[in-house]
Structures are given as C-alpha cells and as structure tokens.
C-alpha cells in the first residue's frame, strides 16, 4: 500500500518534467538496483540513472522483486538525475520472511555524484561516489539478533566502463565498486553488531555483454560484511539478462544466489526488475 502511494506521488511530482530530453545513448542509464541507486541489480554503478545529459533532467521509477526459497524482497524505487552529474534516489524495501513469518522494512535515501569521465567516451572509466542512508523501520528483530543501530549510511566509489567494440566485436560493460558499510544484510538486519560495530570495506563487481543494442547478459558479485554473531553473512551473486526495448523501459531478469541468509541456507531464486524512465 505504502509502495503504491509512493509511486503515485512520484508520478504526480514528475509530470511537469516528463518531457525531459533523453540525451544519452540507449542503456547507458542502466537499471535500478535493489537499494534504489542506478546500476545493475545488486551493485550500484558509476552511471547515473535515466538518460539526462549535461543540462538535462531525468528520472526513473522502478519495481524490483526477488523470490528465493524462504524470503521475498520487494523494492519500489525512484530516482532523479540532473546534468548527468548528480543522482538522488529513494527506495522502500520490504523483506518477507516466508517460513518464519513477519516482515522487515527499510527506507533508503541515496545520492550519487559523478566525479569524472564518461562510461562510453574516452579511455578512462566513469567514476562516481555515492552514499546510501538507510533507516530500518522494523528494528525489533534486528535488535534481538545483535544489531546495534536501526540506521546507517553506506559510502561507495564506483568505476564503470563500456567498450563499444569489445571481444567478439560486442559492446561490453564492466563495473567495480568499493563500499564502506555497517549494514547487516543490506540493513534489513540493522547496522553494526555484537561481532563488529565498525565499518567494513567490501568489493562489488559487474560484467556484461550487449548481444545487440537492446539485450545485455552479465554477472554480478557482491561481497558482504560480517557484523553479527548469530549468523554468517554470505556474498551474493547473480546472472542477469537485461532488455532495453526503448529509452522509456528497461527490464531485467536474473537468477540470483543469496546463499545462506540469517541461517536459512540455499536462498537461490529469481529476480525481476522493471524500470520506467522520464
């Protein structure tokens, strides 16, 4: 319900700028991650969401859903980009505990700033830095398993580069992200913990190949910190297919392996993402 209201509100707010120009090339806006920032599925990239170029505004609305053995994750997200320089994002996550019962929720406010370069042009990668401020609104369970705080802020530095004429004369994209975080399971299990109550540095990466201008296949990897004694956190990966039929629409489907979450093993399943760009 909350999510529907959010989408409705954002639609209303954005209607005056619905005629924003799409000054960048197809697919360079990427997708919307589960944390709201522009990127792949689980890794934020240096690219900024939407197709706004210098002097232009752009925005996206997205809905992501992951369905693994014992859990479901629903994410509604919105982003705004000005000048292809700064991106603001908001995401509302709802994590449903299918077998245990109950839900975990958090809101994520993001900002990303492009420091240098362009993902397509020039030899150097595009480099951006970003912050994701997260507020867990269901802290009772995280608190009970040893988390220290109900809110926290991730900081990341991302480098993304596309090669128009890469191996097999296909366009390739690679991204490396380094993140400082106190978040347990992204923040759904709170921030900091009885094992470690300090920032951890984690690495994340994505590699994709465009079969043609509209279709990309790729893999993602995301290292996770370990702040709680009650259960080890495990790294995530996924294999994805992205479809960019037009600049308005982007769709991704992934097979994701989240391994053991909160002690429940073999959390693999499907992930779907749908994005509309303004």
């Amino acid at each position, binding site marked *: 319900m909350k999510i529907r209201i959010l989408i409705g509100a954002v639609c209303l707010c954005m209607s005056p700028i619905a005629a924003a*120009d799409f*000054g*960048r*090339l*197809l697919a360079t806006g990427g997708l919307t991650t589960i944390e709201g920032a522009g990127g792949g599925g689980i890794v934020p990239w240096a690219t900024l969401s939407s197709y706004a*170029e*210098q*002097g*232009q505004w752009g925005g996206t609305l997205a809905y992501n859903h992951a369905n693994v053995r014992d859990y479901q994750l629903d994410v509604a997200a919105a982003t705004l980009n000005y000048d*292809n320089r700064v991106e603001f994002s908001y995401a509302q996550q709802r994590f449903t505990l299918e077998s245990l019962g109950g839900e975990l929720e958090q809101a994520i406010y993001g900002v990303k700033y492009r420091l240098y370069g*362009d993902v*397509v*042009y*020039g030899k150097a990668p595009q480099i951006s830095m970003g912050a994701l401020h997260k507020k867990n609104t269901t802290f009772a369970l995280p608190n009970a398993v040893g988390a220290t705080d109900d809110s926290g802020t991730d900081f990341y530095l991302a480098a993304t580069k596309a*090669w*128009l*004429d*890469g*191996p*097999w*004369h*296909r*366009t*390739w994209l*690679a991204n*490396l992200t380094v993140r400082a975080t106190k978040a347990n399971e992204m923040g759904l299990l709170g921030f900091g913990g009885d094992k470690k109550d300090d920032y951890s540095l984690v*690495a994340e*990466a994505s*590699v994709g190949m465009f*079969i*043609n*201008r509209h279709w990309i296949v790729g*893999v993602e*990897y995301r*290292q996770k910190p370990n702040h709680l004694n009650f259960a080890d956190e*495990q*790294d995530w*990966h996924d294999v994805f297919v992205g479809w960019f039929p037009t600049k308005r629409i982007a769709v991704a489907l992934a097979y994701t392996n989240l391994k053991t979450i909160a002690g429940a093993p073999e959390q693999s399943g499907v992930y779907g993402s749908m994005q509309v760009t303004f």
Partner: protein
Amino acid sequence: MRDLSVFRALLLILTVFMSHQVAANSDTTAARSTALYDELGGHDGIRQMMETFVLNIAEDERVVHHFVNADIERFHTQISEHICELSGGPCTYKGASMPEVHKGMNISRAEFNAIVENLITAMETHDVAVSTQNRLLAILAAMHNDVIQR
C-alpha cells in the same frame, strides 16, 4: 573462499578486457585491413548508408539546426570519404580536421549522442551487422573530444 574465487574470476575477466583493448588499439596503427570497409559495402554501400544518415539528421529536430547552412551534397560526399578512409578503404578524406570542422558549432554532448543515434539507425536500415556497427562506432567515438563544445 568460494566467494573470493568468484571475485578473482571477475577481476581476471576485467584484465582480459583491458589487454584486448590495448591490442585493439595497436591494431589500428598496424597494417590497415579493408575488412571493415568491405563489410560496410565498399564505396557504394558507404555512400548509400551515409545518404540515409544525412536524411535522418535532416528530420531530427534535436540537431538539424546545426546543418541549416550546410551544403548537404558536399557534407554527404565528405563524410562518405571520411568513413571510407577510416574503415580502411581506398579513399583520402580531403576535408578539414575534426576540431576545425566543428569549431564554433558548440555541439553539446547530447547532440553528439543524437548524431550517433542517427548513424545507428542508418546502419540498421542498411542491415549492417552488430559487430560491424560496433567497429565503426568505436572508431568514431574516439573523435568525441574533437567534436563537442568546440
């Protein structure tokens, strides 16, 4: 540990890309092959494709204002010659350098991308294979800095 090996594999893939890119760059300075020129359909194929490209630009309100005073016939001939030469064909582009041509035009980043899109549409219209499109686009994308905001 398995997680770490996945990460190492990704890093390895990245390294392979970088080295591929270095190799591709040195290719362009080595003995020129006419392969790309041939794949684009040679002299006639390039001229026809460039005609579609020019017509696409003429209908594109985002960029057409840059061409209102242009001699379209001359532009068509020169860009065809230039593409012919860049793709390894037996032509010599006799026009001015890219920075000179675009001096004072103040072409924005968005307008450059619009031109790229017109080129891609022209290549699609002429059924140019994705691999061939990418080879040409990579050569032209290297001119980005010589063209924009001059």
